[in-house]
């Protein structure tokens, strides 16, 4: 497996990470300002996972995502104007304002949907992998899900089915340390209750799935592990699982009072911020200068700002739109 990443690719990975961060930081502000209806779950802090994995995908590959799906959407190449308009519930939204933050999808580019139900995307990804194995060998599906989803029955069922059918799928656990307010594995002073009996990856191993634990704050660590896993899947060697250790900076949802974790803990994780780590590395490697990287960040901020102003001005859907798209036939 060759793991040398070309310069352009490194720059692209950085650009996507800063775009995700810019989008999420702005969504955080917009929600606080009362601009965004509904529930919003932000991905800031976890960028290395989406970008590290998705940078290995090619046309024809699929992913399924979670309620915390903006990062996966952006990394897959969803139009951020359409995404922001969707968050606003506007007619120009990527799903015509019918899905919102939790249901962004773009099948054309392989993004099979964020999901409002914890773990529910995993069987769907298995189905996509089944279709690929049958129709398009060499392509893969990736299921992103959180540490909380690891306790859902349908996820266990999906792991088993993927193994016995030897499907081209990579299960990617984003262990951001909390299942809403429950600590994922190791208790803390503020949250003595854990959601999972000590191990995610071990469960996969129990199903005969090769599993590895990955530093989910280091995009290149994720990239390499995902590359190994995805190449295996492309060769027809079956499923594997990446247990990515990461952290979400914002609450479970916007408005979460976060009584279950301390400011110090957040600061400790922020010291290993995936974007800063990557930026320092790129500069040290001579891939780009600080100035060039800062310019990329500003470009991302501008792009998000444009998406916001566009979304602000865009019209809401016509009420009659509520009755379309239930079926492929006219409404009944």
């Amino acid at each position, binding site marked *: 497996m060759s793991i040398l990443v070309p310069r352009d690719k490194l720059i692209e990975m950085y650009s996507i990470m800063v775009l995700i961060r810019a989008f999420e930081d702005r969504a955080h502000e917009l929600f606080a300002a009362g601009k965004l209806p509904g529930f919003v779950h932000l991905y800031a802090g976890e960028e290395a996972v989406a970008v590290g994995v998705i940078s290995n995908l090619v046309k024809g590959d699929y992913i399924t995502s979670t309620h915390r799906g903006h990062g996966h959407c952006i990394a897959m190449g969803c139009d951020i104007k359409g995404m922001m308009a969707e968050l606003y519930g506007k007619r120009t939204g990527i*799903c015509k304002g019918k899905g919102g933050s939790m249901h962004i999808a773009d099948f054309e580019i392989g993004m099979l*949907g964020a999901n409002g139900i914890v773990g*529910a995307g995993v*069987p769907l990804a298995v*189905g996509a992998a089944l*279709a690929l194995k*049958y129709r398009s060998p060499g392509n893969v599906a990736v299921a992103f899900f959180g540490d909380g989803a690891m306790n859902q029955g349908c996820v266990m*069922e999906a792991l088993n089915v993927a193994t016995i059918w030897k499907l081209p799928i990579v299960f990617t656990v984003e262990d951001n340390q909390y299942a809403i307010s429950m600590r994922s594995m190791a208790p803390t002073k503020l949250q003595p209750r854990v959601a999972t009996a000590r191990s995610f990856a071990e469960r996969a191993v129990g199903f005969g799935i090769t599993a590895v634990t990955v530093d989910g704050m280091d995009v290149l660590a994720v990239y390499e592990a995902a590359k190994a896993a995805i190449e295996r899947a492309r060769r027809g060697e079956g499923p594997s699982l990446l247990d990515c250790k990461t952290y979400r900076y914002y609450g479970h949802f916007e408005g979460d009072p976060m009584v279950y974790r301390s400011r110090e803990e957040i600061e400790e994780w922020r010291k290993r911020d995936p974007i800063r780590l990557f930026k320092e590395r790129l500069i040290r490697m001579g891939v780009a200068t600080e100035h060039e990287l800062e310019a990329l960040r500003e470009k991302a901020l501008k792009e998000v700002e444009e998406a916001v102003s566009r979304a602000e001005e865009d019209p809401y859907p016509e009420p009659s739109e509520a009755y379309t*798209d239930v079926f492929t036939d006219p409404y009944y």
Partner: protein
Amino acid sequence: MSERVITFVEALNEALSLEMERDPNVIVMGEDVGVYGGIFGVSKGLLERFGSDRVIDTPISEGGFIGAAIGASAVGLRPVVELMFVDFFGVTMDQIYNQAAKMRYMFGGKIKVCVTIRTTIGGGLSAAAQHSQVLYSIFAHVPGLKAIIPSTPYDAKGLLISAIRDDNPKVFFEHKLLYGVKGPVPKESYTIPFGVADVKREGSDVTVIALAYMVHEALKAAEELAKEGVSVEVIDPRTIVPFDKETVLKSVKKTGRVVIVDEDYDRCGFASWVAAIIADEAFEYLDAPVKRITTPNVPIPFSPTLEREILPNAQKIVKAVRQVVRKI
């Protein structure tokens, strides 16, 4: 078309086989559908003909494999997946009603989820509370799922072929007591459109609306009532999503009397919904209150005596028709 008399099971088997031949994207999945040929024999012989890539035996893991069928259908396959008994929907309902039913709408109409979920329904076999329900009302209640409920071998074949070709998620309900029922079925492939009710017997005094096995009970009752000089029209909606309101209302306007036979539980079910539609749109044509014959709100009991007590049947239909006819 060349017709012969075959069973309901054979008709379904032919539908699957013809569609698999026609479209390589059609695959069959489910518990024991392969080597075993389906627990009721519906997929018999398919594994041998189409191979294990297209006829997939699954573990007893409905959330996993029905979810997988839905995922595969969202990216272009046409899986026909079997939920062995509708009673088992509880372990996979999220994938059906939150995923399959809503994906197209949530994603702004840009995708198609063309999965067909075949399942078995119905009492009368002393299979007790977890293997005897019909439950189609629950599925019909959720926007985004089509619900197909055939009553004859002819309908079964044509509706299943239509279902496989339809671009929406749907649940195809097969009443267990119908599997052995025989009827004339053309050899060739043919489709029956959804949302078109079939008048199984024409009549002028009372409209009886019934589904699945209850269509046969209604026909038995009609035969009996004919001896008393009561002319019963038996309407089989065949699909409840979409629902052929026009045919029902037309018949009600003609007869002025309605009995709705529904094997589902009484509360908030199909019969109540149809009664409400009739009350809304044909009230002035009614000569008697709308009568519903349903399964009372108790779990399906095991003992044959108890089960007979609660399930709708021809005798109960006859009794109800006599009541509405008396109220002239």
